[in-house]
């Protein structure tokens, strides 16, 4: 890592140059909400002017640029009594501007899931390697809880990271490519004051969180509370619409489908991003559904996020961006569900002498 500082106008011209030379995505305001609040999404950008550098948070994550909602895995072409299979995983290079630390942490988690273990995914790898990530810090929103998940800072997984220190950006340059591109622009060595400003900025961010969730020991809680009535309570609210999983930066469960081409001369195997909240996620060929109730499926998503899966070193994959909470029409959000779970357990602890068995 190399540290430099850059003036804001110079930074804009750098971004403008890189955006114009590449396929780039950045935060843009796409709508204005009911209360006049701007709504942002990561969208294609063609100049620095289109990027909302002061954006708060995007509604949807940038996950689909690494794991498209629909992705072709392979193609079969049928010839006389035989077939050939074609597998392609080339990805056009893109530049991704404005990812928050939690978003970059989410990509690092996806790296673990998709690239570690015995079967690394070449489709993901191709996209990941061909994505140039420029991160930017921000002051947390009222419902951000990435600090609770310890995902509010990031030190790898990006090419360039920019911290706002007033009239300048403090740059953490983390790749030879990034360093090479920046050679064309006026950079300065960070002064003593710049370093102080960076530390002050970090402190301020750290102390600005208003939402905190206690997640220590949560894996054990979740195991103990597997049959807790709170899952039914929240399940009764759940619309099973899958919105949470679609906007989540780390939800990656998918389904694979194969379809004949319309001319019947071939077929395509695709994966579709799916959600474990959708009604038939755990339905098997005979029709049996292992998770028939809304609550079962909601619980499963919380399990995946806050307990972690064995193959993934049992790590919690939630980064605390609360996109699911904002997108959920039924008002289900991690903070309330987890607090409810803890409350449930704690009230149980207090009555343990009289009634150890809850009904």
């Amino acid at each position, binding site marked *: 890592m190399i540290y430099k500082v850059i003036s804001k106008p110079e930074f804009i011209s750098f971004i403008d140059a890189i955006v114009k030379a590449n396929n780039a995505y950045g935060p843009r305001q796409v709508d204005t909400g009911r209360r006049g609040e701007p709504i942002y999404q990561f969208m294609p950008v063609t100049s620095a002017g289109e990027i909302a550098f002061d954006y708060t948070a995007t509604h949807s994550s940038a996950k689909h640029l690494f794991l498209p909602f629909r992705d072709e895995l392979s193609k079969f072409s049928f010839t006389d009594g035989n077939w050939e299979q074609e597998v392609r995983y080339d990805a056009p290079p893109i530049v991704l501007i404005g990812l928050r630390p939690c978003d970059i942490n989410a990509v690092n988690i996806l790296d673990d899931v998709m690239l570690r273990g015995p079967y*690394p995914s070449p489709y993901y790898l191709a996209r990941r390697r061909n994505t140039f990530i420029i991160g930017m810090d921000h002051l947390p929103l009222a419902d951000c809880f990435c600090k609770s998940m310890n995902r509010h800072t990031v030190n790898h997984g990006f090419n360039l990271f920019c911290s706002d220190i007033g009239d300048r950006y403090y740059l953490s340059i983390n790749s030879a490519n990034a360093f090479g591109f920046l050679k064309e622009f006026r950079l300065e060595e960070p002064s003593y004051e710049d370093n102080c400003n960076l530390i002050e900025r970090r402190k301020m961010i750290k102390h600005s969180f208003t939402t905190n969730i206690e997640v220590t020991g949560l894996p054990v809680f979740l195991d103990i509370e597997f049959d807790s009535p709170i899952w039914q309570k929240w399940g009764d609210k759940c619309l099973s619409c899958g919105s949470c999983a679609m906007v989540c930066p780390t939800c990656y469960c998918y389904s694979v489908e194969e379809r004949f081409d319309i001319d019947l001369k071939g*077929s395509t195997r695709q994966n579709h991003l799916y959600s474990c909240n959708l009604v038939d996620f755990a339905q098997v060929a*005979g029709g049996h559904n292992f998770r028939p109730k809304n609550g079962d499926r909601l619980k499963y998503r919380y399990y995946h996020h806050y307990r972690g899966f064995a193959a993934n070193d049992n790590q919690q994959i939630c980064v605390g961006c609360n996109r699911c909470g904002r997108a959920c029409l039924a008002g289900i959000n991690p903070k309330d569900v987890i607090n409810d779970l803890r409350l449930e357990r704690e009230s149980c602890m207090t009555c343990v002498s009289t009634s150890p068995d809850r009904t």
Partner: protein
Amino acid sequence: MHDLRFNIPGQDLNLEPFALRAPDFQKKCEVMITDRGYKCRITNIVPLSGQERLFLLRIVDPLERELFNFRPGQFLMLEVPGYGEAPISISSSTSNHEFIELCIRRAGHVTSALFEAKQGAIVSIRGPFGTAFPMEQMKGRNVLMVAGGLGIAPMRAPLFWIGNHRDWYRDVRLLYGAKEPSQLLFSYQFEEWQKVSNVKLHTIVENPDGSWRGRSGMITTLFDEFTFDPEETWAIVCGPPAMFKFVCNYLDLKGIPMNRMFVSLERRMHCGMGKCCRCMVGSTFTCLDGPVFDYWSVMNLKEAI
């Protein structure tokens, strides 16, 4: 001004930094990592019952045929081009490099398409995937095998294994139950298992018909026909969850430690590689950490049974 584009063509990716599981993975990297399977010809189709058939597959490419190795209990993803993939447990002998045998029930749309396919059809397999029965660890012990219904399909690979390594094991017993006599699959092999492999076979059906002269009832009633030394016995149990729960609980009562009983779980699978999360049981992947689990682990998996 430099050209700021990065041109790293996707196809030239260097896949080396990742830990590879098996020594032959280098070759498999190209074959499997990319969702590409081994092309197979269906050389024979043997009807077993109204619903089940045995498919004999031969890998077309001689090199791939040589490379394809599996352990008893593992499964593969069978691709019927045009229709999709389904996880199928391998039903043949690990020493048989010529043919792969798959015992398949017509259940979903992939298997339905396979049942329409004719001899000579060309399909594809990816794998093998998943865990296996610990046949080496059972060396020198008694092996008690309990199969219910289609549970005989994953049981055949360990049966063949035992036949090939018969001197490794002491008493080997197979308890095999089905709903009806016609659903006792592979009855043509019963004599071979008993005489050649020296496996003591006990069969039972739930609903006997006029021709059935054996016992009828639940599979657990067969336990009154013999005794076993729980200290020296390892168990393999395959069948519907309700069955293996009963059987394993019985064996637990009799004193076989839960970590010496092995069961094979079935779930919906889409990738076979621990990615899609369709086969999750609690926090465990059936495709990576299973399908073979010891009963202790299954007991600890939420929603397994």
